[in-house]
């Protein structure tokens, strides 16, 4: 397991997904909080390259031994890359949620959707509210 971190260069969705923006492309993953709540991830059911994902909707599933969790897209776009390494070693989501545990990269269809996401301090405040 990794330590609890929320990098300052990412944007965050309330369903505990993160976005790393690079021009009109963005990489998605799940936050430390999400992987901790799920427990050891043992299965990743990803979308296919070329699929369209929609902000606020599920684009795949992560499963622990005990539970299934939908992965919610923080922004809309077309899938241009899927992290096959997580398919083979799903525990990467636990050990390195913001690095090797990334899930997909999309070409954003509406970059303005990113404005609705939280920055790190806002997400931390949101998490504090959840546990209060």
């Amino acid at each position, binding site marked *: 397991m990794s330590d609890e971190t929320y990098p300052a260069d990412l944007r965050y969705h309330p369903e505990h997904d993160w976005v790393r923006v690079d021009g009109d492309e963005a990489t998605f993953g799940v936050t430390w909080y999400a992987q901790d709540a799920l*427990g*050891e991830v*043992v*299965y990743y*059911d990803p979308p296919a390259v070329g699929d369209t994902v929609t902000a606020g909707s599920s684009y795949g*599933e992560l499963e622990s*031994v*005990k539970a*299934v969790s939908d992965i919610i897209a923080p922004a809309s776009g077309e899938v241009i890359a899927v992290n096959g390494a997580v398919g083979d070693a799903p525990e990467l989501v636990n050990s390195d949620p913001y690095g090797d545990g990334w899930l997909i990269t999309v070409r954003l269809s509406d970059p303005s959707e990113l404005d609705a996401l939280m920055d790190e301090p806002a997400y931390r405040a949101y998490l504090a509210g959840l546990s209060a």
Partner: protein
Amino acid sequence: MTDLKRTSLYDAHVAAKAKIVDFAGWEMPVEYVGVRAEHLAVRSTCGLFDVSHMGQIEVMGKGAREFLQASLTNDITRIGPGQAQYTLLPDDNGGVIDDLLAYALLDRFLLVVNASNIDACWARLTSLAPDGIDMVNRSPDVGMLALQGPDWVKALTPVSSPEPFALAYMESTEAHVAGVPCLVARTGYTGEPGVEIMCDASQAPAVWDALMAGADRPDPCGLASRDTLRLEMGYPLYGNELSRDRSPISAGLKWACDLAHGGFPGVERMQREAEEGTPDRLVGIVLTEKGIPRGGCPVMAGGEQVGVVTSGTLSPSLGVGAALAYVSPEHAHVGAQVSIDVRGKEKAAEVTRLPMVDSSPRKEHHQ
């Protein structure tokens, strides 16, 4: 939040960084470092579980044996003091109120029941008990640990007196563990050799701490691994595989029902089902492609639903999706090719032998 109960080991779990969940009204550890590591520790070395949430009902008095013989499905006359037996508490229709272990002790019987069913068992047994039977619900006062895995002897040796290692599977004895008077029994729910240890709840932390202080200490294990371990063995779980809606026969528990002599409630239905067959039967299934079956997933064959998953997980031992499921008789044989509908995606699967792994709680230890 409702009023959740805590076992006397709660502080020990928190100190060990357990993830705590609500289970049957109790705040219980679901996992410590992770379900897979804990599961594999029990299969390869040794693990320690807090199962103090389980219920203990003592049955005493003249005629206690006859009362239990008339109330439970198994033949309790086959066990004497120091022996235990798996049995079921049926309702009047032959449905299952609970599955339990009955321990015969010197002057009484001890019934160890599921935490979620303590009240139902108590109510049922009270309603059936004739005059002269004395029953005590000891559940709140009893702490219970399960030390499970091939290295259980190494973990228990330094702290037990006498060393209860001559015990055969399903035998029990009184012993002192860490100086605490305990009932130690060669029982468990994991499929590995090991013991379950019962003592006064207030002294359970001393037993736990002593076992955890040894050089060959077990891994602390949570309820998640207890569930995956029992699933690989094909052991039924009340609420998943067992309920009031079906008799024990379709669950493959005919061996725990004394149909020849039984005078217990529901025996006629069980005799009829044993002779004529049941509409479906409990089997083990493994996926032959990636995916994880879950309770409620339909089992399919030839485009039609032929059953339903009652428990599903990723088998930590096998590394594949694994399930227990009720399927129609024509598919209830080892090797039957089926599929499981996992949230709309059909996954190829096969009926497998039970247990799914090469484990047995009867294995003797090596000294």
